[in-house]
């Protein structure tokens, strides 16, 4: 992929969003650069999910602008909008797989709707996607209710990747996974970023995951982005919530992992 890192694929400016009669986001500025993995953190209830859902168009905004892949979403026509929808993939927190379809059919769903390939090729691509996220081809025939939590996340990721998107939204991808599965997921994400050159917008609470995968981290607090930068910026920040977050009790137990994770980040840079 012609990776021109640096130019933003998502540009959010002065975003204001009300949710449940409360101003949740008040002037958010945020860039997602091409080819980077952006980790997005903030206290529970700070509005991370609201921001994600606003960008992907599930919630209305009160003011501001969101530009995705050069298209200003609030001014885009239905067709332009759909063209953008095709170029991003979303992984919901619980997977949001269609429970009445097998995993394979779940992955095939967007392919069938958008590309109209032959059934044979559609199936082959779906199997290839399932294998890409580290599943056995036979998972194709399983229904979501027959899969474990980690497998559901992987199938959902395969579905999000079905159309070879340029941007991937991940909502707490490692929540509910055991540390080993979570580490595997991080590793998978790095591989996919390398091979497919996708830009990733990841909401997460997982410190290990942040250390291991993210090129940049943005912090949301009181309706604004209070800090954005790499791990060193985060560790050096004087913002009280950030100090608590990265130097608190939970963070210290993971210190070894953190150091290792930073080494991975440095090597990649």
């Amino acid at each position: 992929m012609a990776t021109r890192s640096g130019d933003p694929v998502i540009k959010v400016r002065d975003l204001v969003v009300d949710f449940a009669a409360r101003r949740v986001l008040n002037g958010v500025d945020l860039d997602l650069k091409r080819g980077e993995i952006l980790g997005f953190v903030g206290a529970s209830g700070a509005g991370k999910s609201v921001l994600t859902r606003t960008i992907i168009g599930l919630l209305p905004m009160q003011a501001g602008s969101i530009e995705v892949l050069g298209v200003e979403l609030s001014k885009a026509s239905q067709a332009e909008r759909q063209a953008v929808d095709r170029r991003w993939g979303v992984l919901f927190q619980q997977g949001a797989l269609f429970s009445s379809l097998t995993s394979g059919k779940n992955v095939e769903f967007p392919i069938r709707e958008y590309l109209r390939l032959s059934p044979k090729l559609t199936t082959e691509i779906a199997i290839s996607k399932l294998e890409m996220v580290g599943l056995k081809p036979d998972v194709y025939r399983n229904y979501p209710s027959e899969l474990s939590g980690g497998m559901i996340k992987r199938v959902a990721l395969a579905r999000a990747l079905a159309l070879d998107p340029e941007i991937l939204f991940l909502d707490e991808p490692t929540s509910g996974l055991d540390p080993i599965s979570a580490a595997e997921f991080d590793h998978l994400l790095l591989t996919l970023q390398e091979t497919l050159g996708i830009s990733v917008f990841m909401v997460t609470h997982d410190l290990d995951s942040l250390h291991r995968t993210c090129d940049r981290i943005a912090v949301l607090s009181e309706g604004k982005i209070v800090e954005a930068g790499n791990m060193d910026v985060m560790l050096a920040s004087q913002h009280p919530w950030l100090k608590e977050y990265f130097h608190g009790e939970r963070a210290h137990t993971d210190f070894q992992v953190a150091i290792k994770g930073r080494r991975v980040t440095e090597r990649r840079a």
Partner: protein
Amino acid sequence: MTAATLDHGPSRDDGLDLKAAGHWTAEHARLLEPLIDAASHATGKHDQTQIRRIVFDATRVEHLDTYGAWLIERTLRVWSSRGAETELIGLQPNYRNLFEKVRAGEHKLTPLKHKQTGIVATFESVGRTMMAVFTDLTMIFQIAGQLIVAFLSVCAHPRRFRFTSMINHLERVCWHAVPIVVLITFLIGAIIAQQGIFHFRTFGADIYVVDMVGVLVLRELGVLIVCIMIAGRSGSAYTAELGSMKMREEVDALRTMGFDPIEVLVLPRILALMIAVPILTFLGSMAALYGGGLVAWLYGGIDPKIFMSRLHESINGQTFAVGMIKAPFMALIIGLVACMEGMQVKGSAESLGAKTTDSVVKSIFLVIVIDGLFAVFFASVGI
């Protein structure tokens, strides 16, 4: 955007050169597939088996994604499965990783077991259906048994009974159902009276319409219409509620906290239904008689006073009692079927829908069967 192409190079004695160019991406996959298929069958002037060597030249591929990568890999696999030697040259280095990742997969499902067809399959499906009916029956008896146990244990410890929950359900299945039940039974009563008058008039027997409406409504129709409506209205709601609780593991949560789901969820619902259906049957029967009387007066010219005195002669307490006594049994059956289906819901949204449908269909069927059994019973004891 440049389109994607695949050209056949000059074929040599024992080989074939394929040259790909352009954007090998998802958008072009539909057009590329036929080209790939053609390339997999292309033989030039030679027999397929004579081709020993395939060179796939990807130098001019400008853009590649997983779709393009798989299409290339698929061509190579087809040829190597025929014993030809394959080689991919000229792929841009930044697509190497992607191609290797796609190539690494097996891309094959293990074949399914051969499915039976024809007569055997028909017998199999008949057999399975019969077994399902049998399982359903045992399930009903099982849940009825559990319900009795729960009821007795609540009788022994009355403070454990969820009175508030029962009142809440009573409000929903009884109070909220009154308007629609009364409206429908009113209309049914009116329609029966109208039809009766219209046809009896030919014999000059208009007045007997009072007997017909009275007996039909009090003995059969009142309770039947109400039960069918309640099965559709509340039975389905019970199944959907319990089913979604089952899906989200709320039922399991109750169990782990040491509560019996039958006692906590099913008993209050079924008791509420057993109280609600007789009340609604009474109201429905009255509404139907009122509707019948109104039509008899306005359409048939039977004065309300005459209607009432005729009604007194044609029916008695027994007629009324026969209808009412059936109501709680019907309620029990509706409740049991609804709760049983709800508890059988599996993980998927589809299964919730299927079980809710089953619940309504089965409870209406059973209500009519029970009504028939009661008719046989009352006839044999001479009521």
